[in-house]
């Protein structure tokens, strides 16, 4: 019977422990734009296997929020950032979005950093009537599906089909490649998306895909896939995934004696790529949103590095742009009401660091963003050309 008592006590203690935590948590009061503070949300991976990108986005946006406040705030109000973790999961993104809207009363949400999360936010945003500006959610369905635009979802990045087609067209038309091989992460939506459109475009232009091999997120050993690719004798290898696996792939490919040109997407650029496989990546080409030699890019990079002791990942640039788009929309609407901001977002034009952004009211995608082709030389990403298809 004593047991029953300890049981009850421990239960009460545990519940008590956590309820007592709540008031201490920032932003737990009823929210809304009470007084002089107005809240903007950010969601994304702070834990889980995509945390590296989420952490960079959050840092960047915090930096920008501080800057806005130093310059007198947004429409005279102090801006507060509520940044919450989604673990990179769609259903978490759903819950977190609802919480930001219903409890914190944010006026706009920035992020998340992947399509899997962004797709989870759609019903939550529609229920709450608050806009979201995704940073790196490249799946077309995030903003536009079955001929219908999702009213509250926007993005500042370009979409998978575009990147995949650009890479394919560049490889075929400019590099003169005709036999391409693809290695991709089949459990990553980003990677399967790019692969699909790369293959479509490459074959449309008259090239052949000589090998298409897959792996799963978390894998680090690709030698067997690469052995198969090697025996198919491609003249270009498309690697549509993130730099960690890209670096390891390059290393293992060279180890196997597979000396073929590498081409990829915006998952490539990172300082860390050079730690993994600097020599092996030399000459690699990839599609990107921006030119690193651009002064705007360098200013931000310097600012970020000074603040956090390491250079930003690509997501940081897009987070920067997402924030700038948000800021512009607020100023254009001259209102802090989410519905007004949503309206203002449609058709807004902003000069971002990843290029000139104009949000298409029909699709909520940025239009006219030109892709840049960059080449890896030494420890630098050398701008080759702007390139676009169709």
């Amino acid at each position, binding site marked *: *019977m004593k*047991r*029953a008592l*300890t*049981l*009850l006590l*421990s*239960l009460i203690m*545990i*519940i008590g422990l*956590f*309820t007592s*935590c*709540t008031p201490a*948590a*920032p*932003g*737990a009061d*009823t*929210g809304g734009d009470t007084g002089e503070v107005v809240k903007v949300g950010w969601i994304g991976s*702070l*834990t889980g296997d995509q*945390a590296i990108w989420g952490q960079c986005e959050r840092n960047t946006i915090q930096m920008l929020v501080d800057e806005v406040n130093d310059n007198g705030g947004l429409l005279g109000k102090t801006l507060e950032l509520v*940044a*919450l*973790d989604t673990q*990179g999961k*769609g*259903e978490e993104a*759903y*819950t*977190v979005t*609802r*919480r930001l*809207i*219903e*409890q914190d009363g944010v006026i706009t949400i920035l992020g998340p950093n992947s*399509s*899997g999360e962004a*797709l*989870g936010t*759609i*019903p*939550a945003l*529609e*229920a*709450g009537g608050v806009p979201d500006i995704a940073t790196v959610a490249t*799946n077309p*369905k995030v903003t536009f*599906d079955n001929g219908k635009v999702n009213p509250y979802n926007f993005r500042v990045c370009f979409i998978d089909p575009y990147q995949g087609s650009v890479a394919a067209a560049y490889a075929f038309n400019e590099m003169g490649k005709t036999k391409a091989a693809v290695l991709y992460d*089949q*459990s*990553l*939506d980003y*990677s*399967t*998306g790019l692969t699909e459109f790369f293959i479509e475009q490459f074959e449309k232009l008259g090239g052949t895909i000589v090998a298409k091999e*897959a792996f*799963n*997120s978390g894998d680090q050993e690709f030698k067997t896939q690469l052995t198969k690719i090697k025996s198919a004798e491609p003249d270009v290898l498309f690697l549509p995934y993130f730099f960690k696996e890209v670096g390891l792939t390059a290393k293992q490919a060279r180890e196997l004696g597979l000396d073929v040109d590498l081409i990829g997407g915006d998952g490539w650029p990172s300082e860390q790529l050079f730690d993994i496989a600097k020599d092996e990546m030399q000459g690699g080409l990839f599609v990107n949103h921006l030119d690193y030699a651009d002064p705007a890019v360098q200013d931000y990079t310097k600012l970020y590095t000074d603040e956090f002791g390491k250079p930003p990942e690509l997501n940081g640039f897009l987070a920067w742009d997402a924030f700038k788009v948000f800021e512009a929309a607020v100023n254009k609407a001259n209102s802090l009401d989410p519905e007004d901001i949503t309206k203002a977002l449609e058709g807004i034009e902003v000069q971002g660091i990843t290029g000139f952004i104009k949000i298409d009211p029909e699709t909520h995608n940025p239009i006219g963003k030109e892709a840049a082709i960059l080449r890896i030389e030494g420890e630098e990403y050398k701008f080759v050309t702007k390139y676009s298809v169709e």
Partner: protein
Amino acid sequence: MSWAYITTVLIMTGINLLAVIGLSVLTGFTGLFSFGHAGFMAIGAYTSAILTVWLGVPYYLALLIAGLAAGLISLVIGRLTLKLKGDYFIIATLGFGESIRLLFNWFDPIGGSRGFRIPSEIHYTSLSDVIIINLIALILIANLINSRHGRNFKAIREEEMASQVIGINIFRYKMLSFFISAVLVGIAGGMLAHLTHFLIPRNFDMTKSTFLTIMVILGGLGSLSGSVIGTVVLTFIPEFLRNFNEWRYVIFGFLVVLVMVLRPKGLMGGYEISDLLRWVKRRLVRRRGEKNESA
């Protein structure tokens, strides 16, 4: 906290709860451990989504069929693996869960790794759906547990060999338990699909299975009310901890170990709320008796 947010968390809790009730039958009452139930959840989620989106099947019927689909697969998997002992079974279920995820990633017609979208005109899982379904499930499972079949589950958990010699077909009962758990977890998957209206295989990973199992254990093995409490506590704790972001799961992991070390039988430790009430009542009666005597 705002009511809309609480509603969201309650719906999440309800979805988790249904899955945990299912797992409780398997783990809490039959003593079998599975790290692959996220796989059944995925099967239920996709089945229900396909039914409502492509075939226009009504929500509740789609959930039922989704549960049965998960149950059907569980019979095949159970047939092959339920004869395995202890950790062999656990690892086999782990492999099953990962394989299901891989299949959904690979299978393009339902979106592959890019996910499957449910259009917004289709029913959204509401709080009342969650309450109705959980109440039904709780009543049915409580009935089952309080029957000869339920007692056979517990017998198997306690002592397999003794169960055999009193005539319990342990393989059949393990199959039944596995089936029931898969059905409930499958329905939970269907409810989840219709909450977020979007499905992506990476959401159904091993962490999900682990998390469900942890709820069962922390609530207390062999206690339905424990499962309810465990689920409510463990769904709400991470919500309260949300502002800790990166530190959230550090604290969570620590708590799990702490509970195991301090109270390994879980919060309810095999007792039901009704036992607790009975005990409190008996105490009160006794105290009143003492008072009367002294008066």
